[in-house]
């Protein structure tokens, strides 16, 4: 018997983002998510995509949007997350801004937990977030997308950041 392969649907992710009330996407392309997620968001008339040159800009742009009453999502690759550690520390954590981040785990081996990856850069992502006391959620299969809206709602309720890790490449 062949086990059913479970996919992660971009449409389900986008629906979850919209259910969370997000209409601003701040993004730097990540080949893990660009084709199925970012391009669809850019073409979506309900969404406004703000392209940034470096990911840490996005942490502050999302905070500025929050100050005006808008919800936003920063979409980037895990390398951008690691590059933005100081902004996440100083702007999101210490200044209590609900910066919501969706982070592509490019190169994660299918069916593998990030901490078990052969890639050093992927293995350290969750431990780094744990040390920073930043809540995170792994999206691996479509059923996981049901938690997107509640994770974002919780971030706004406690006024702190959250990271949604995109493990599988969305289809």
């Amino acid at each position, binding site marked *: 018997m062949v086990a059913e392969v479970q996919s992660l649907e971009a449409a389900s992710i986008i629906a979850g983002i919209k259910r969370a009330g997000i209409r601003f996407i701040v993004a730097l392309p990540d080949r893990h998510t660009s084709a199925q997620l970012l391009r669809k968001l850019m073409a979506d008339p309900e969404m*406004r995509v703000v392209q*940034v040159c470096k990911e*840490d*800009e996005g*942490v502050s742009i999302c905070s*500025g*949007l929050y*100050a005006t009453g808008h919800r936003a999502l920063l979409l980037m690759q895990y390398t951008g997350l690691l590059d933005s550690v*100081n902004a996440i520390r100083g*702007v999101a954590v210490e200044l209590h801004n609900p910066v919501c981040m969706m982070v592509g785990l490019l190169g994660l081996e299918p069916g593998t937990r990030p901490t078990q990856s052969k890639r050093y850069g992927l293995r350290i992502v969750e431990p780094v977030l744990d040390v920073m006391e930043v809540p995170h959620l792994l999206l691996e299969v479509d059923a996981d997308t049901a938690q997107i809206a509640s994770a974002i709602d919780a971030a706004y309720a406690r006024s702190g950041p959250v990271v949604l890790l995109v493990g599988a490449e969305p289809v």
Partner: protein
Amino acid sequence: MMRRDDCLKVLALRRSDEIVVATYMAAQEWIHISPSELNYTCIGAMGQASSHALGIALGRPDRRVIVLDGDGSLLMNLGALVTIGHAAPRNLVHIVCRNNTYETNGSVPIPGADQVSFTGLARAAGYREAHEFEDLADWERAVDQILIEEGPILVELRMVPGDPYPEDFRRLGSLDHREAFRQALLGDRLKG
């Protein structure tokens, strides 16, 4: 050469309901020169002021947003010029307080102090206008027009430190003030 607090006082005299995002030395002075619930101060992650301001400008396109940036701060986030030029918020005025030093961090000179042109960088990045001033009277004559021009606009003010103001980093990072800012804007939107 202009003094920073004199430059800020010129701006404060013309301020009506503009949002002002300020960082580091300019912020330390601005909160005394022009106290307001519409002041948004940011410290902690240097270089990010213009990015905070972009978020605010996009979130409230009906309000003028002025960011008081530093030269060392902007050098730390130069890509933001391209991001802002591309997003093209019409309501954003980006003021760079240029004294050619990392003043908060021991007044060490910035790299490229004798060469870099922030107005040149801004124009190349897609800002609609860029102005440079080193004389207070020129700045006074221009500021009214700059506050109504279509943005994004960059203003480079060549200056030296002026009178000393009390440093209060706790105030600049105050969550109470940040929440007061949010509430002031939300209340304003409800009234609108």
